[in-house]
């Protein structure tokens, strides 16, 4: 889902970058207010964690492999703004270390995987546990939230490619959404298991107030 340079038109790049710059600036301010000087070590180490977790590949059908995205996990536990901040750092590092995702396309990638991924998963998770705050509801909520985050991010990615004229909407949208509907199931299952591990050993982390505003 990392968009490389060259696939997006300049206007798409500009719009996506403006939205991302606004979002990241908001995230820096809000998270900083909430966590104060703890922000730097906590966000830094957890960004490194997401980066490392993304290196655990698992086989998907047909010789391809996928990896964990992590936006939903970060957003559910630490709140959407912290999720945006962590994903932004991960994406910047991936762009600068692996050339995975382009430099000018960074704004679009942050918008898709950071902003859309974090906010959609956080609010869907909250919506589900507002009906029923049991352990099972949290697990189901995290599954649904992760799935939606992946699918929405891929739809945003497809739309950006289509608007830029790189591929026709009628093809890229169902293709991206279809593939990511499957990847989303895997992401959802992993997030659920991760949440279960956290509930079993450090349940207090889930009780702490996430950064919402």
């Amino acid at each position, binding site marked *: 889902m990392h968009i490389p340079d060259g696939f997006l038109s300049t206007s798409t790049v500009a719009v996506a970058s403006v939205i991302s710059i606004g979002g990241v600036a908001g995230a820096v301010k809000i998270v900083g207010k909430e966590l104060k000087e703890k922000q730097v070590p906590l966000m830094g180490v957890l960004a490194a964690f997401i980066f490392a*977790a993304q290196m655990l590949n698992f086989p998907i059908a047909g010789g391809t492999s996928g990896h964990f995205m992590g936006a939903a996990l970060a957003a559910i536990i630490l709140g959407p703004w912290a999720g945006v901040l962590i994903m932004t750092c991960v994406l910047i590092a991936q762009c600068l270390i692996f050339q995975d995702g382009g430099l000018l396309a960074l704004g679009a990638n942050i918008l898709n995987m950071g902003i859309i991924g974090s906010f959609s998963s956080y609010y869907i998770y909250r919506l589900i546990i507002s009906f029923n705050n049991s352990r099972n509801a949290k697990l189901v909520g995290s599954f649904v939230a992760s799935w939606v985050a992946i699918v929405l991010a891929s739809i945003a990615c497809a739309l950006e490619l289509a608007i830029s004229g790189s591929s026709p909407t009628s093809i890229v949208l169902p293709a991206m959404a279809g593939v990511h509907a499957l990847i989303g199931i895997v992401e959802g299952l992993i997030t659920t298991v991760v949440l279960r591990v956290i509930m079993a050993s450090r349940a207090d982390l889930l009780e702490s107030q996430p950064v919402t505003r």
Partner: protein
Amino acid sequence: MDISLINSYNEQDSSCHRIDARAKFIFTLLFILCIILTPPDNWSAYIAYFITIISLISLARLPGRYVLKRSLIVMPFVLMLAIFIPFFKEGEIAGSYNIRSWNLTVTYDGIQVMTNLLIKAWLSMLGLIWLTSTTKTNDLFHALGRLHLPQVLVMILSFMYRYIFVIIDEMMRMKQARDSRNFGGGKLWQLRTIGNMIGTLFIRSYERSERVYAAMISRGFDGQTRTLDNLNFRRSDIFFIITLVIILAAINIVNLLVLN
């Protein structure tokens, strides 16, 4: 940890390595912007950009094999995004194939669009590789800070870069333990194992960040990191950026004149 992750050439020394990180970053940004703005049929411009970046890469004394290998690592993913275009773009038909009852049509327009996207992506990647292979990662983050990326973000990035290696090591140990226990079973079982690993890794990372924070607080951390920031714009940096901007501008002007 995996040695390929550590950029092994950005600690070297060459005329390119000595240029201020800000100048290099701005140039790379402009370079990629110019590539994106170039119309698809403008082959001479692409060749000119290619020559520009190849001369910079050789000036930095980066081995060609290393650059090629790094630029090709991500290409499969790029190809996956582009491979459908020739089949669905409307235009003059280059060939059509019948696979069972499925009719595949390839158009010239589609092939041109795809090749163009691949060339743009690859050239941009060469620019990025040149930037990251001639600049120490921490210098690059500081340069981003000087270019008005929020200071907090720069600190988080530096922290992340410091701990990536620690946490990847931790993950590799877990992975080794998993593999030595004959990682198999059904897909669901595998996913459960990976989930458990990531969960454990999350808790360890979180607790590590708490220990790091406690250590920082006890050493008087007040929300600001102070580093020896030795970025300074010298005359050679100004010379570098002006020369390359002139080259990029010349490529664009020549092409405008040729096209009209």
